[in-house]
Every structure is written in C-alpha cells, then in structure tokens.
C-alpha cells in the first residue's frame, strides 16, 4: 500500500471555514498524486471538534457536498487528537476492497472563544472522572509531567529545550503555525503558567488547518511512498484508570506491533514525527517508541540526537508545538512531513539519507495511539 498524493494547508489562524479547508487539502492532494476525483473509490474524513466547536456533524455528507455527483462511500472517523491517524488506518484496511482512497482531516478551532475551546478539547477525557473535576487537556498533561519529573528527577529545563527545538524547526517550514514567529529561549522561560508545571510554550497552539492523503493499493509512480506498517492501539481514557502515568501503554503496543510488522528495530528510523501536544509527551514518546530506555529521553535531547542532522531527527516540520495542532488533521500532517522527507522534497529542512520514517499520533492523554512506518520503495 502506497501514499501517492499528499497535501496540507498552512496551519494557524486562517480565514477559511471547515469545508473550505477540507476542499483545499483534497484538491491539492489529488493534484500532488496526479489523480482525478473520479479515481477515488472512498473517502475517510476526520475531525475531532466539528460537533462542539462548529456545530457541524455529518461531516462525511458535507464532504459529499463538496464533490457534487460523486456519491462514493465517505465516512467520518474520530479518535480525539489521533482522529486522522485512525482514519488513515481505516483507509488502509479499505484497500482490500478499493484501488484508490483518500483520507482528509480538517479542524476549524480559532473561530471559538477560549472557554469553549478548552472545554471542547477536554472532551477527549472522561466526562465524569476528568472533565467535571476540572481536568482540562493541559492539566492532564501537567499531572503526567509532574509524575514524570518526580520519578526521573527531571527539571523543567529539558522541556524548555524541547519547546525551543520544535519552534526553531517550525521556522524552516513555511506551512507551520510558527513559521514567521521566532520563539526565543527567553520567551519560553518567561511564558505564563498554564497548568503547573507547564507554561504557555510547553503547549501546542490552537490552529486551523487541513491535510489530505491519497492512498493506492499498487505503486504507480516513483514519488509513491510505501506504507510499511500502520498500527492503532487503545487504552483507558482517564489517567485515573492507569497504573503508570509516565508511559503510554497504547503507544508501546502500537509501536511494538509496527516494528514487528515492518521487521525493523527502532535504530532503522531516519526521521520521526512524534506527538508533542505538550513538551512532556515528546519525552515520553521517545521512550515508549523504543528509542531509549525509560527515563533516558532527556539525554537524547541534551545530546542533540533529535536535531536535524542528529542521529534521530524529530519533528522536522516543527511538530505539534511549532507546526500547529489542528487536531483532526495532525496525524496526516505528520505523514505529510515524512513522505515529503522520503521524496526529498523538504527544501531547506531536507534531511540527508532518509530511507525510513515513522509517525506517532496519540488521542487524548494516550487513550488511543497510532504508529506508522513509511519507507522509500
């Protein structure tokens, strides 16, 4: 199975509405893959908050309205921040029945006020156990960060470095939310507290944006990139239902299965897009994905391994923190970046010698997780 076409919009505060964003991404993914809309057999659409924030459900039918007279199967899939990866996985499954399918993820978040946004994003956690006790999204990861920092004697300084690297990477990605904004170490250190110990720049921004991918059963062009493995795993929704908060079981299981399916070990990965919704989740992901042992991720960061040019370049597009987090499009944007790198079309941020890349996308506080491995054919 192959990725034939990719596209993403600019992420950030955009003028376009939800259908316009989705349409833009779909058009350009078709164009990138040299396909016409009539080549597409089915579409998998993902958006996390179109219901609560845009008062729009039945999004699959909205997509049908964007494609008058097409009438193909279109399905919406939601798994919080991992929505588009879940849609991507379903699209892959559907290639048993279809030749060419499309995945499109879109989110329009900035048109709502912050009280609504924060409450809506918190819907990724358990209604009665978490939301009603005031555990919004930053607060959940703040508890995770606190547990991690206590267990492994980590200081906030390492999180500041992660924030700095991601923001700096975004400066070389013209489509990133933070492309034009230079975020200095001083700004990071002095940013206001959101939920202790996390500050503003520990958090990914609220972004609008969309991404789309065309998937084919057969390889057709040299630009096609092979999906070596794609795995999706789940876990209990509330951190109060877990034994260990410093590690996400769903990530570990999806990663193990993905490595097994691909018959590779972590050291083979040349480029990694991981889910840094908050700085702390980057540390935890590096460990859960098997790039180091538990409690050792800070060392990888300190040694510069995750920089472009390091042994394991991470989030070359800026990650969720720098590139933006239009939730329902995020997983596809990660695949967009890896495919761009594998095709050697990444411009100023192009890595050298990239053969195999990985994406890691989680829903909520690790209640769902997707790991995808892609490689040059």
């Amino acid at each position: 199975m192959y990725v034939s076409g990719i596209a993403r919009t600019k992420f950030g505060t955009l003028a376009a509405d939800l259908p316009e964003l989705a349409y833009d991404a779909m058009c350009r993914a078709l164009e990138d893959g040299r396909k016409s809309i009539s080549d597409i057999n089915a579409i998998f659409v993902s958006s996390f908050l179109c219901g609560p924030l845009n008062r729009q459900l039945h999004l699959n039918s909205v997509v049908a309205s964007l494609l008058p007279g097409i009438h193909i199967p279109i399905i919406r899939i939601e798994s919080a921040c991992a929505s588009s990866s879940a849609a991507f996985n379903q699209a892959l499954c559907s290639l048993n029945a279809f030749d060419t399918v499309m995945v499109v993820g879109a989110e329009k978040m900035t048109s709502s006020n912050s009280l609504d946004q924060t409450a809506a994003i918190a819907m990724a956690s358990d209604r009665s156990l978490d939301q009603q006790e005031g555990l919004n999204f930053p607060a959940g990861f703040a508890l995770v960060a606190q547990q991690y920092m206590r267990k492994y004697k980590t200081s906030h300084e390492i999180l500041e470095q992660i924030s700095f690297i991601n923001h700096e990477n975004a400066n070389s990605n013209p489509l990133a939310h933070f492309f034009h904004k230079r975020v200095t170490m001083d700004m990071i250190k002095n940013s206001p507290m959101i939920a202790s110990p996390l500050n503003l720049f520990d958090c990914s921004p609220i972004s609008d944006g969309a991404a789309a991918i065309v998937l084919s059963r057969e390889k057709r062009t040299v630009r096609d990139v092979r999906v070596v493995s794609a795995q999706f795993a789940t876990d209990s929704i509330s951190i109060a239902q877990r034994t260990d908060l410093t590690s996400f079981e769903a990530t570990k299981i999806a990663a193990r299965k993905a490595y097994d399916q691909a018959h590779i070990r972590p050291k083979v990965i040349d480029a990694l897009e991981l889910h840094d919704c908050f700085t702390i989740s980057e540390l935890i992901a590096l460990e859960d994905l098997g790039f180091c042992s538990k409690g050792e991720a800070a060392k990888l960061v300190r040694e510069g391994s995750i920089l472009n040019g390091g042994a394991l370049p991470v989030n070359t597009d800026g990650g969720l923190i720098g590139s933006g987090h239009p939730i329902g499009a995020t997983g596809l944007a990660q695949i967009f970046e890896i495919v761009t790198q594998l095709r050697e079309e990444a411009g100023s941020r192009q890595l050298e010698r990239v053969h195999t890349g990985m994406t890691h996308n989680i829903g909520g506080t690790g209640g769902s997780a997707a790991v995808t491995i892609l490689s040059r054919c």
Partner: protein
Amino acid sequence: MKYYCRHCDKHWTYRIKTCIFCGNATQELVETEHSVIGYTQVHVPSKGHEDVPYFAYLLQDSDGNKMIKKSFNQYQIGELMPLEGIQKHHKEKIGIVGSGLLGFGIAEHLLRFDYPTIIKTRSEANVKKLFAKMNERLLRSSTPDQAQIPLSNLAVSAGYEDLEACDIIIEAAPEDIEIKKGIFEVLSETCGKKTIFATNTSSLSIDKLSKSCDRPQQFIGMHFFNPVSRMDLVEVVLGQHTSSATKAEIVRLSVAIQKKPIIVKNTPGFIVNRLLMPQINEAVALLENEVASKEDIDSAVKLGLNHPMGPLALADLIGIDTCVLILETLCNDLSCQYYKPNKLLYDMIKEGELGQKTGKGFYTYP
C-alpha cells in the same frame, strides 16, 4: 464509584454489574481514604471551570485506585484529602428553617450533593406538598450526567424537635428580625450544643441576631442567592463572636456544594445588597422622574454594564417588598438618607405589585 471482578482482577470506574470477561457479578468497592500523589494548579479557565486558578489533584487509595479531584484548597503530596462532594458517608445533617423560595432552593441544592436535609415548615399541611414538589424538581432536572438523586435524604417536618440532631441549621425565614430572633430562641433550646446556626439573612445584623441564641461563637451568616442552583456565590458573614472553627466549617460546606464562599464582616447589606440596592433605588428614581422607560433602563445596565439582568427586572425577581426592607435596613443602620426607598416602591407595595411572585411588578408576569 469503583466496581471489581475478583475472578478476572478487572476494575471499572463505571456502574458495571456483570464482568464482560467471565460473566460473573462484580462487586462495588467502597472508597477508602485517598492521599494526594500529584497535583496541578490550573490557570486556564474553561466552560464549567471559569474560576481560576484551581487545583486538580491526582489521588490514590491504599489499593492503588486513582481519581482526579478539583479543589480550590491547597494540599501537599502525601497528604490525605477529604472527599466531601464525592463520598456518600459522613455528610453533615442539615436543617433548613423556612420553605420559601430560598429555603427550598438551598434544600434542593444540598440534596443534589447527598446531604441529609430536613426542611422545617410552618404547617403540617405543607409537608406532603413539599415532598411532591421536591420530587418533581429533582426528577425534572436530572441530566444523564447526574445519577438519580434520592429523595430518601429529605425529611420535612412542622416541628422543631426533628432538628435536634442537625450539625448545621440554615435559617431562611422571612426577612423580619423579630421572626428570626424567635426562631433562634427556640433552636437554642432544641438543638445539640455543637449545632452551628447559620442565617440566610440578606441584610439583618448578624450581631443583633446572634444575641437571641445561646451560642454566638457558632452563629454565622450564610447568604445564598436566588436561584440557588445557578448562583455560585455564598456570602459568609462573620459576626463579632463568630469563631474561626465555625467560619471554616461553613466555608468547607460551601465549597463541598460547589459554591464560591466570600468572607465579609457583619455590615448592613453585606457586599452584594450594599452594591445592588442603591442601584435598584437609582433605577426607580430614573423611572419615577420619567427619564427613560423601564425597558431602556434595564437594557442600559444589561448592555452597558454587562449585567445579565436589568435592575428593575431583578427587583421584580427579588420582590419589591424585600427590596424595600433591605433599603430601609441600609437607611437606618448606616444612618444615611441616600438609601431611603423611593416613593414608587411604596406605591407598588400598596397596590400589591410585589414582582414576579404576585404576577405584577415593574413588568407583568402571566
């Protein structure tokens, strides 16, 4: 809420009666003491949690079961945390004297938080009516988020003797100092020595009222706002003799029923009515002088001051007679004619136009 299957060693935090793995019945685990294993101070508000900063605690019991709990109070890691508002056991027994709008509303709110509540009403004939009304109210507003609220925590009585074992009494009788004094005299004789007396008075002096009881240290103001279910404020009013233990107890109760307590020393009108009543009185003056229509006065305050309601509509909701009583109290106790109720208010009382409760005030209510 914890359910457990001992055959499969599976836990649920939902009301699961049968294990999906083995088909056997599960057992409900009784929550034991929880200690704080983590916390975050949340500075970003969200819908439903507008008041920041607050703490979100990660708690764990001796079996390793965890839960998240919001609180405005600070606890340290390792500390045991009291779980009022969650634990169904050891709730204070609360007596409400008066079954009017506010008394009934306070009782309803307490029942929603599983507090055993007794309403003292004046006549035996009311007892059945109040039960039926409460049943209807609790049923009507039960959302899927709330478990069904048991009526079994409610008692209604026409006699004071049933209030004997209450931990806290909240008096919500009419705003008349003689009536209230009479009630506290009887309560002093009926209730146990530990019972705290709280009055829901909106303007009467806590110190004057406390003279009518035998325990001024355990006497305090606990001023709720109408409608109780939607107004988050409680004015906790300290008299000269109110002890810090009494204050702490009432603050704790307020927080446990998800109200925001503010502390104010005994003073005429406390904070809210001291600010509100002059505004209502000025609005009445504007109307009396035909400066603007009642609708425009209310719109001005709603849109220009960002109040959810205009002063004249609010006066109708509170009751014109109550407004006059509070204004008169402010006028007398502060010895200041500025607070003297405008003539129009007295005219309305004469006509029986007392606001929403009589169907007519500044506006008419069909």
